[in-house]
Each structure stands twice: as structure tokens, then as C-alpha cells.
């Protein structure tokens, strides 16, 4: 599992995962959240709403355990590589947000839309209500359009 998590992180963000950095932990959570919703099951995780958006306690505990272990080469499936590429594309342009805020924004909008199932017209407002620091209107609208495409059938 450690190899997978570290390699997933590196494949998507092009940097080495370091558990001691909060931004890395948040970005790993969101990368795995996106992949799971695209039909690429990374582990038996379940995400619930947390301070920084969708969060899995199990994933966090596994990521911590992994931090001290060396990375081995992992051969992912073609489907996984496709999804890495898709995530990399939409992560690349963060607008006025930092990368961590950007993935938090997209994942949170996705969770509000598909799990909490808030009406599509209210989702962005709900995000700002829950996370006042995610206040870049144009970027939020763009993030919402991306969030709508993070499903396996699309």
C-alpha cells in the first residue's frame, strides 16, 4: 500500500510525498478521492466531511505508516494512468488558489454535489458557507465544472 500511495502522489503532483507536510497530506487525500470516484480503487477507504473537505481516517493512518518506507516501482494499470493524466490536467491550472486549496475546492464541491446531494445551483454557495477562505468566485465556478466530470461514466 505504501508504494501505491507514494507513487500515486508522485505521478499526479510530480513531487515526493512527505507526511510531515500538511499540504502533502491534504493533496494525497484529494488525489485518492478523485481516483476512487473515477473507478480506480486505491484502498478500502471511505470519505467523510472534514475540516479540509473529504477525508479518510484510514488513508491518513496508512499514509503516516508509509512515510518512513522506501518507494518501490509500481506498475499501474492503463486505466489508472489515464486517470492520473486527467487529474494532472485539471490540477495544473489552480487560478488564484494554491494547489492544496484548488484540490480541496474541487473535492469539496464534488462531495457536496454527489454525497450530500445539495442542489447543483446551491453547491458553490454552500462551499463558501462551509469554507469562507475558498472565496475566489471565478475559480469556484470552474472547479464546480471540473467536479461534475469526476465520475467513472464521464
Amino acid at each position, binding site marked *: 500500500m505504501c508504494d501505491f500511495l507514494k507513487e500515486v502522489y508522485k505521478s499526479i503532483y510530480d513531487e515526493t510525498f512527505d507526511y510531515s507536510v500538511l499540504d502533502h497530506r491534504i493533496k494525497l487525500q484529494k488525489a485518492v478521492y478523485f481516483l476512487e470516484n473515477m473507478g480506480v480503487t486505491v484502498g478500502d477507504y471511505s470519505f*467523510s466531511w472534514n475540516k479540509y473537505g473529504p477525508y479518510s481516517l484510514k488513508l491518513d493512518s496508512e499514509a503516516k505508516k508509509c512515510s518512513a518506507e522506501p518507494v518501490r516501482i509500481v506498475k499501474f494499470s492503463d486505466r489508472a494512468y489515464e486517470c492520473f493524466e486527467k487529474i494532472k490536467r485539471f490540477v495544473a491550472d489552480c487560478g488564484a488558489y494554491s494547489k492544496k486549496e484548488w484540490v480541496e475546492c474541487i473535492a469539496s464541491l464534488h462531495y457536496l454535489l454527489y454525497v450530500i446531494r445539495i442542489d447543483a445551483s446551491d453547491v458553490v454557495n454552500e462551499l463558501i458557507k462551509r469554507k469562507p477562505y475558498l472565496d475566489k468566485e471565478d475559480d469556484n465556478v470552474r472547479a464546480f465544472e471540473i467536479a461534475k466530470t469526476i465520475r467513472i461514466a464521464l
Partner: protein
Amino acid sequence: MAYRIEFVDRILDPVHGFIDLTQVEKEIIELPIFKRLQSLKQLSLTNWVFPGAEHTRYMHSLGVMHIVDLMAINLRTVDYQSYFNDEQRQLLRLAGLLHDIGHYPLSHVTEYVYLSTLVEENQSLFDYNQRVKEQIDDLQKSDTRIPDYMKDRYTVPMHHEYMGTEVIKNDNDIKRIINKYCSFVDIEDICDIIVGCVARKPEISAMVQLIHSEVDADGIDYIMRDATFSGTSYGGFELGLLFRNLVVTKYNNIDIIGIRPKGISVVDQYLISKYFAYTQVIFNRHVAILDTMAEIFTKTLIRLSKSTYPGAKELLSYIKNHNTNDGYLKFTDRSFWTQLDALNKTDVDLADYVSAFIVEIHEKLQHYQEFEFNKESEFMITSNDRAKVYESIIGKDIYHNLDSKEENRLVLFHRKGFTSEMPEGLYRRKIDDINNEPITDDEFKDYNTKRLQEGVAVIEPDGDIHLLVDDKKSIMSFLYNTNTYILREYLVDNK
């Protein structure tokens, strides 16, 4: 006028006797999309070993509806008041009836394949055995992992529970029948109960727990049903005593279903029965290899362009269009066997496309055969000490053979414990460790709510609430960390 449950028909079930049906249920079970479940065996290929195990997801679904209603009728508040009205009971009955409507051919065997999409798998026996080795090597490390309690499957689109919600939302007839007879039922509530989601509507927490927790209607039915049909005795426990002790209270403003202290013994009995059902039937040496062979071959069918087995996207499109297309209705156990046979009738030489051991699996399954079990290889240990288990395994030949590149053996590794519960002190220490500092009592309450929802809460007469593992009267306070580990080798005769 308030809705009242009235039964209009009944079905004789070998496990529970007569199962009564309301009009809405009677019409739903007549739909082709529900009858599809008659073509999904509950235990995949287990009937090749336990000949009676021919039962289907159809019978199980009726059983879950029946059991969840008995639980709802018997559930009491701490001061012995009834809890659910007839509208809520009907909602629960529908969720129980429909909870497996998105299941796969050969049940979890095929589901596992659709969920395993991260890495390239089964290209060689060496790869397969190396993954077993990784699982064994993991035992030497201290286990700092924390489970996600109350798993919500909305974020796992290929999980059968999520697929079930897609079936329900895309089926015109199910929605029409429910609206006709039960306009008070919100389809979204049914879906939340099926996938185990308490995030959207916390007030349905009690209903979700009756289908999604350590002692729920789903588990109760399958333990009883699997035992009855397989002919084993591992499904026995005092069901009536369990029902009589069901109780609900609030914790952190959320409903938590639990048992009164008098129910501890029956829950212990149930969890031990469940443990034996796995170690003696599901992990039976023949059942386990047959399931693994079917799983490996299913993966081949999905990957092989000559096969018409659907990929993930195609399967979801079957579901979206199933009102006008039979693709999903035909996605049953029969489709697996049809595809297996069809490969003989084409001009395809399987050996040109897949590894020799997969060709061998194709041959064997067509002739009701399995890989030969190496009797000397079997190693089984029950322990609560992971490091000791690891030390015991690494001295065995079977462990060293995992590095062999000879492609002539397949190793299976199973692990089963008694409960997924973790004592409160340990759970809190692990969360503190993740956070690098102690969390506050309020923060812990949020984590602990899910732990209490999923586990078996013991609710005292004064309202005090704790999990079974934290109750010294329960045998689970000793067994919570104990697992049985089984390692077996099978010989593959590559021609």
C-alpha cells in the same frame, strides 16, 4: 391518513418460514430487474463443494427485508417505547429488499475484479504470489492503521451498493411502483440506506445501521442462510433474544442502535458464528481456490477483446439504459459460464493472449476442476500477535516458494477476525498519534459517533453507552485483536 402496513401475499422461505409482502413489494419482486437476482448465486461456486449452497441473491434480499422489519418492530427506546412507525418500517423493508439489486455475477468474486483497477494484476503467478508475500511481510510492522467506520459507498462507483442505487434511480418501474403505493418514501433515503450514507440526512442514522453495521439484517440473513443451504451449523444463535434486546439512544445528537446488557451473549454468539462461517465455508480449501480461479478468469474476460464481458463504463451504460436494453438483465452467473464456453467456439487460441496458467484455469473451470491442493503446504494459526504470526510463517517452505519464478504454484492467504471493533482507548491513542497531539473530547465525539454506529453498542439502563469490546462481560473484549491466518499452496500443471 397515516400509511399502515398491510400484507397481501407471502412467500415460503426455507430459512425464515413465511415472508409476508405488502402490495408495493409484491409488484417489485415481479419485475425482471429484481428477478435477475434469481440468477446470481449468493456464494458463487461454493455449491461445487457444498452442494446445497444453491441459494441466490433473490432469496437473500427477501430475507433481509423480513429480518430488518423484525428488528424495526422490536427496537425500543431506553424506556421501552416503540421507535419506528409503519411508514418508516416500509421504507426500511424496501431498502432491505433492494439492497443487493446492483450485485454482480458470481457475487463478490466478480465485484472484486471490477474494484481492482489500480495495478496490472494476474499477468503471472509470480506477480500473484508476490502480492501474497507483501501481505505476509506487512505483519512484521506494527499495525498503526485505523479503520474508516460506517463506510459510505457513494464514492466507490463500482461497488455493488453504489451500482444498486444507479439501478434504482434509472429504473422507471421501481420508482413508479414506489410512488404509486408509498408516495411518502424518498428514493434518496432508500439509496442512502443501501450505500451506508449518514452524511446527507443524519436523522436516518438508525435505519442505516439496521442494514449497515456489525450486527445488521444483511449479516443476520446471510449467516443463517449460508449455514442452512451449505448444511453447516455455523448459523445458529438466539435470534429472538437479540431482537428482544435491541435498543436505541442518542450520542452526539445522533441515533445509535445497540443492545441492552442482556443481549451481550447473543451478539458474542453471532460474531463467533460469523467467524466460523468464514473460516470453515468461505475459506474452505476447495471453495477458496475455485473462487480465486473464477476471479482471475473474470479479469481475463474483461480484458480480452474477443469476450463480450463489459468493462466498467459499458456496465454502467447497461444500467443507465436497462429500461430499453437487456444488457444488464443478462449480466448474471450465466453470462460468466456462457463466455467461458464461447471462447472454445471462436477461432481464438487463448494461449496467444494470456499466460499459460490462465489457459489452465479455463480448462479446469470448463470441466468442474480446480488446481490441486498441496496438503503439506497448509499453515494455519490463530493469534493476536502479528509479529509472532510473521515469525511462524517465514520459516515455512511455502513462504520461500513465493519467490519462485517457476510459474507452477499459486498461494492463497486468508485472514479473519471476530470483530472490526477497536477499544475506545486504543482508538483514541491512534487518532492522537495521527494528529501528533491529543484531540479534544469534542473532536473525539465526532470520530466516536461513527465507531458506535458501526460497532455493537451496549446501552445501559441509565443511558451509558460503550462498545462490546469495552465491556468485560463480552468475550470480544479479549478476542477483538485475534485473527486466524491461513496459508495454502496449489499446484498448477502448466501444459
